[in-house]
C-alpha cells in the first residue's frame, strides 16, 4: 500500500511537473520574445547606416538603402500629430528610456539596459503605508477594464489596467491575450512571499525598472493607474481567495 501510495504520488507530481513546466517558463519575468535576432540585427543596421555610399548588398529584411535621420522622423511626427492639443503632443515626446528603446528597437545592449533599470527604479513610489495588497474584487474589475487614455475617451473616464488584453489571469476568463505571459496562479506559484509581492508591485508600477524595454506600460510612473488601483490589481494576483490563485 505504501509503495503504491508513493508511486502514485510520484506519478501525480511527475504529471504536475510536466504540465507545469511551460507555465513556469511563461510566468517568468522575461522580456517579451522578439521576432528573431537576425531580423532585429538587420533592422538595426538599417537604422545605424548613415550614408547610402558604397554599402554592401542590403540585408534581406532591411529597408531601401535610404536612411532617415531622427530629425526627419520628428518632422513627420510633427506633420502627423502637430495639430493635437499640446498636452497630447507632450505624451509622445520620448523620455530618455524610450529614446533608448526606440533606438535599439527594444533590443538594448546590456549596459544600456542596466542604465534603464537604474534610472527607472528611482521612479517607483512604494505605498507609504507599506501595504501592497488591496481588494482583489476591485482588482478583477480593473484587470478587465480597457477604458481610458484614448483620444475618444472623456477626460474623466476611469482608467482600466486592461490586463486581460495581454495576459491570462483567472481561468474562468477565456478572452485573454497572449502578448504577455500567463499569470494564472501567480501568487500561489510564488508562495505569496514578500519579495515576490514587492517585485510584482515594482513591475506593474514601472515595468522598465525590472525588464528594460519591456512591452508593458509603466502604469504607476506614467500616472495611468492610481496607487490604490495598483494595490487592487496586486490583490487580484496575490490574494489566496482571488480566482487567479483559486481556479
Amino acid at each position, binding site marked *: 500500500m505504501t509503495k503504491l501510495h508513493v508511486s502514485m*504520488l510520484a506519478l501525480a507530481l511527475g504529471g*504536475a511537473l510536466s504540465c507545469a513546466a511551460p*507555465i513556469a517558463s511563461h510566468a517568468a519575468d522575461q522580456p517579451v520574445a522578439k521576432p528573431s535576432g537576425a531580423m532585429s540585427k538587420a533592422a538595426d543596421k538599417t537604422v545605424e547606416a548613415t550614408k547610402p555610399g558604397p554599402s554592401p548588398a542590403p540585408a534581406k529584411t532591411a529597408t531601401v538603402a535610404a536612411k532617415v535621420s531622427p530629425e526627419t522622423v520628428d518632422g*513627420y511626427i510633427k506633420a502627423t500629430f502637430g*495639430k493635437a492639443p499640446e498636452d497630447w503632443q507632450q505624451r509622445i515626446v520620448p523620455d530618455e528610456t524610450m529614446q533608448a528603446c526606440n533606438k535599439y528597437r527594444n533590443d538594448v545592449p546590456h549596459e544600456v539596459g542596466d542604465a534603464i533599470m537604474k534610472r527607472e527604479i528611482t521612479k517607483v513610489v512604494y505605498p507609504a503605508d507599506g501595504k501592497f495588497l488591496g481588494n482583489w474584487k476591485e482588482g478583477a474589475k480593473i484587470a478587465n477594464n480597457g477604458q481610458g*487614455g484614448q483620444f475618444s475617451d472623456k477626460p474623466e473616464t476611469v482608467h482600466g489596467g486592461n490586463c*486581460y488584453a495581454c495576459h491570462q489571469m483567472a481561468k474562468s476568463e477565456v478572452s485573454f*491575450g497572449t502578448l504577455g505571459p500567463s499569470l494564472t496562479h501567480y501568487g500561489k506559484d510564488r508562495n505569496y512571499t514578500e519579495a515576490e509581492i514587492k517585485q510584482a508591485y515594482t513591475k506593474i508600477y514601472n515595468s522598465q525598472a525590472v525588464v528594460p524595454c519591456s512591452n508593458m506600460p509603466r502604469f504607476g510612473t*506614467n500616472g495611468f493607474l492610481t496607487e490604490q488601483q495598483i494595490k487592487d490589481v496586486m490583490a487580484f494576483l496575490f490574494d489566496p481567495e482571488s480566482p487567479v490563485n483559486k481556479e
Partner: protein
Amino acid sequence: MRPITALSAVIAVVLCTMPIVAKAQDASEKEIERYREMISDPMSNPGFLAVDRGEQLWAEKRGTKNVSLESCDLGLGAGKLEGAFAQLPRYFKDADRVMDLEQRLLWCMQNLQGLDTKDVVARRFSGPGKPSDMEDLVAFIANKSSGMKIEPQLSHPKEQEMAAVGEELFHRRGGVMDFSCSTCHGAEGKRIRLQALPYLAGPGKDAQVTMASWPTYRVSQSALRTFQHRLWDCYRQQRWPAPEYGSDGITALTLYLNKIAAGGELAVPSIKR
C-alpha cells in the same frame, strides 16, 4: 498517506487541465473564423454600395471649375483607374510629394475641381446620416485594382524616405502606455484578448493578407472604412494623439506596410467584423 494521494491527484488534475483552456481558445478562434467566412461573401458585402456611390462621385462635376475627377491622374495617367490603387502611395511630380490615394484625391479636388475640401475632410469618416465622399471614392477606385498584386513604388528617393520613415514610426514608442505599432504587431502568432494580431514587423503572409483587405466594410461600424481610418483607430488604441487625416506619417506607414506586403493580391472592398 491517503490525503497525500488525494492531494497529489488533485494537483495533477488541476495542472493538467491547462490544455483544456487552450482547447477552448481554439474552439473560439474557429468560431471567429467561421463568422469571418460567413460574412465574407462579396454578393452580400454592403461595401459595394460605397463602390457604386464612389463611381457617381468620380464622374460628378463639382467645384468652382465645375469639372469631374475624371481627369485626375492617380499615377498611371489622367483618369486611368485600373491598377492605380495597387501602386499607391507613390511620388507625384506635379505635387512633388508622395501621396496615398486620399491625399491625391484631396489634391485633385483642390487643384482640378477648385473644390473647398473642408467639408469633404469633415466627413472623412462616415457616421449615421453622414456619408463620406472619401470612403466612397476610395472604395470605387480600390475596387478597380481588385485581383491585382500590391506593387509598392520605391524607386524615387522620396518614396524611399517615406518607406524608411514608416518603418521607424512602426517601432516608435510613446504615449501614456509606451506603445508602438510593434507592441502588438512585432511578434508572430500573438493575440489581444481573442483577436489574432497580424505580424507586421517584416515581410510575409500576414502583411500581404492585411494590406490586401483594405478598404473594407466594417460590420460592427456599418461603414466602409479605408486604411486612413484603420491607422487612426490604431493610434487611438495606442493612446497616441489623433493623427491628422491625410498626413505624411499615415502615408509613410502605409507605404512601409505595402512594401512588406508586396505581391499580396488585393480583394477589395473586403468585409470584416
